[in-house]
């Protein structure tokens, strides 16, 4: 019978395998501990600046006020649902997002497609559309006031054409002004994203489609849109987020209590913060985040459905 000899330890093969396994487990544990230690500062930061504040918001939404802290369960949610100002704000925010976000996506896509073609002065047009992104908020407000103030340039033109002056910001036209402001500010960025996405569509597939006598619209809807699906999702989400940021410009134009057509959720929450009404503010924020989660979830599902066959 031949006995296998082991040079180093002299242990039989089974014992060596067990030892090897123990060594492996210890090594894995060590790796996990050291990884945890390296991640800990970032995790603590995320905990301190994202997770804990979110938990605090939930706490505030369930108490009567931040001073006494008496638990009232869902009373704050019930109360703001019945608040006329909150309902008005939700309506305005929804209307704005429902109009501005699709417009931002569609118009920027169209612009990207146009600029993708070999037009003269293409880069100058691109710079023209990108430049509003670099303008500071205060300057934007100044420009808009010059244009849309009651005594501004647009009304001067209207009067010159024989019309009456319109108080753009303090009337039902306020929403139109804000949508134009939003589009002016965000089209450039979205356009750049789409242009990059369009450039990354494989040329050979487009050539094959051309060879197969596909019409341009068919190429666009059956090939390009599929490849653009993830970018569409990204642009839609970013536009939705940016649509909330329009509050900055609106606030500078109109202060705390604007005309009711441009009174948004952010006004409501900002005013509630100023008046120490943290419980109502938190309840409104949670309701808004729930709606956002649903919307973004729907967008993800849509992207998943339309874009899955082109993903790697």
């Amino acid at each position: 019978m031949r006995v296998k000899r082991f040079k180093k330890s002299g242990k039989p093969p089974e014992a060596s395998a067990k030892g090897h396994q123990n060594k492996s487990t210890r090594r894995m544990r060590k790796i996990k501990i050291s990884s945890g230690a390296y991640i800990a500062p970032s995790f603590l930061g995320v905990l301190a600046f994202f997770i804990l504040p979110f938990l605090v918001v939930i706490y505030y939404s369930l108490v009567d006020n931040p001073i006494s802290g008496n638990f009232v369960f869902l009373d704050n949610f019930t109360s703001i649902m019945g608040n006329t100002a909150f309902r008005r704000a939700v309506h305005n925010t929804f209307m704005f997002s429902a109009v501005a976000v699709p417009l931002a996506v569609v118009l920027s896509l169209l612009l990207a497609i146009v600029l993708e073609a070999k037009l003269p002065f293409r880069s100058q047009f691109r710079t023209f559309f990108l430049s509003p992104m670099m303008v500071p908020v205060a300057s934007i407000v100044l420009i808009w006031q010059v244009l849309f103030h009651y005594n501004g340039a647009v009304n001067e033109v209207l009067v010159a054409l024989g019309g009456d002056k319109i108080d753009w910001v303090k009337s039902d036209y306020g929403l139109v002004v804000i949508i134009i402001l939003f589009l002016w500010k965000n089209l450039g960025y979205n356009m750049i994203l789409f242009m990059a996405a369009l450039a990354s569509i494989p040329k050979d597939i487009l050539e094959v489609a051309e060879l197969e006598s596909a019409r341009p619209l068919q190429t666009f809807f059956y090939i390009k849109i599929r490849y653009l699906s993830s970018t569409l999702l990204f642009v839609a989400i970013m536009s939705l987020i940016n649509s909330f940021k329009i509050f900055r410009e609106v606030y500078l134009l109109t202060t705390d209590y604007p005309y009711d057509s441009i009174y948004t959720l952010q006004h409501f929450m900002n005013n509630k913060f100023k008046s120490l009404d943290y419980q109502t503010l938190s309840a409104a924020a949670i309701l808004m985040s729930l709606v956002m989660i649903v919307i973004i979830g729907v967008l993800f599902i849509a992207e998943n459905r339309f874009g899955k066959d082109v993903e790697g």
Partner: protein
Amino acid sequence: MKPTKKRTIRRRLLAMALAAATAFSLAACGNSSGGETEKKEWVWVPEFVTIEDETVSYYDMQLVGDALCYQSYDYDEETGESTQSICKYALADGSITKTPLSYAEEKNWNLNRVAFAQDGSMYGVTNVYNEDYTKSETFLCKFDADGKQIFAEDMTDLVADSYTDSIAIDGDGRVYVTGEANIWLFDADGNKRGTVALGSDVNWIRSMGRGKDGKMYICYYGSNGSTTLCDIDFDGNKTGNTYENFLSGNNNKLVAGIEKDFLTQDGSRVYEYDLKSQTSTELFSWLDSDINGSNVQGFWGLEDGRILAVTTDYETDENGIALLTKTKASEVPQKETILIGSLYGDSNIQSAAVKFNKSNDKYHISIREYLNYNDYDGDDYQAFMTDGINRLNNDITSNNCPDILDLSGLNIKQLATKGVFEDLNGYLEKSGKLSREDFLANVLEAYTVDGKLVSIPYSFQMSTVVGKGSEVGTEMGWTLEELIAYADAHPDALLFDNKTKDAIMMTLMAYNADYFIDWSTGECRFDSEEFKDILNFANRFPEEYDWEKEDVSTPNKIQKGQVLLYEENIYDFNELQMCNEIFQGDASYIGYPTMDGSVGCMLSASQAYAITSKSGHKDGAWEFIEGFLTKEENPDRGFSSFGFPTMKGKLNAMAADAVEVKYYTDENGELYYDENGEPIPMGGGGGISYGDGWSYEYRIPTQEEVDLALSLMEIAKPVSYSQGDEVLNIINEEAAPFYKGQKSVDEVASVIQSRIKIYVGENK
């Protein structure tokens, strides 16, 4: 070692270093900036000393070496002569030496500003008047240590029409005299050495004094509102280097520092200013040393490191000096700190806190001010206020909430509905010193929110509208319609003097904003015809008032029939007699117009403090408030606060004192008699006069006038801006284009309706 293994080790070391850096930076986030609640390493322990000299003048004391020098005035009744003396109070043993001044010539000398030199001599700016006081000359005089006048240098031409503000002596004995934006320079013998004219960029010189380096410095206000410190180049007849960030809240003296260049104070805290870094470092708070910073007349650093402060108290006549010694906090008995949060931190609250701290062994009051005027650059006061209120709100909602809040400037209803305040009803019931019945009911009602009594103010004043009885009627109260009809009936006269569109809107909305708002349903009626009538009425008034063109006084205009109504602020029992005089006996206190015709007499309370529900020292806080409300008033000074007391007992005493006829007496209490052998009654005290010659001297009020004031107190109520002035702000903002003729009243009313409806919807 293999290269990959080396790379791995290097990567791990770098990652560990970055992780450590992140961890340390997170640890730094734990710092709190709560000032008064922080444990201090050093405290300045006071020793109070009273100077036993009734003639001492605490306002012009100067520290010279180890003595306090001042002037005193003595009157000899037998000879009828008054004597001025240089007095020296030795800090070492408290002895006082008095050296009478003797002038070289017999003239009508009036010593104005003085400065004491190290050798005991005194320099002074003196005015000499002619017999009928129509002309004066100005001299720079010097008196030696024996009080003998050495010289009188004529500086009448130098001074011209200016006033002399201060005089100081530098380390070389050279004399500096300031007046408006000029500094006049003299050598030790009084010879003129030049003038430093600061130019039109300087408004006035606030203070002058020697720094720790012995050089002379001035602190002046610039025309742009800035405060600048600079040194004076005597030989060059000009100013030298300028220094930034010098405290604008400094009192009127520049004081050499102990460790750094200057000691400064802003009425609350003491700082040291360093010329090199141009920064101030806080040394201590006056309150922590049981001193009311508002009462500090002068302070200096002594050579032994102590600080000497001269303090006066007008209320209690407790005047004297405090010697402050720097001591380790651990060596001083500790008390529990009760923190008062105040936007403004005025003298009354400091005075109350000092009294409490001196008499209480368990608690110590500290004050946290949220508006630091040392940081205010003169621009955008609204942003400065908003910042202070935001910081207060942050403290309220965090664990940094003060125990007591000073309610002036705060939105009381907003804070009360958030449960910020403790209900004082329970404390009143348990109190052995106070009860609800001790206070005016409508004042307590004004500070009751949702059944909770949030505060008991100490004083209040009223405001009402007065008209001619034969025209507006003698019954109090009228409607807005009646006011407009009255104005329409007198188209050639102004309804009010000095009223702009915004101001009249405020007057009209004082009690009527809530008429257009239904807070329960959130409905508003600012698009109604009634409100449009108000807008149209307000539009009749001027946009701005030209104060420069003011040549005829309001009382004169009323008596000539050019103005119909007078807005009267009533803060003592004398005010009503002036209205009677203006309307020549036909005054009717009709009040602000209301929609329903009820009386609109405005009540505004002050010195209101509330205990916060988050306080950990509620009993101590109540002890402070109770003591403050029951404080004894000085019978010789009358009511110490501005306005009327809210306590019925004090109010009744004030009313009785107001009608009491007092007679002039001498220092022994003996009556003076006139040529008819009648005792000479004292007047009501003071008077008022205007540039056009209209004047009135107050007499002792009649019982009818006092009763009328008391009856107004019973019906006075706070304004209906129940949610702050946001409603009024929106109205004024949106009405502006209508006033300018750019928009119609319908358009403007519609926008106001929309915006206020949002506001009401949010807050109902």
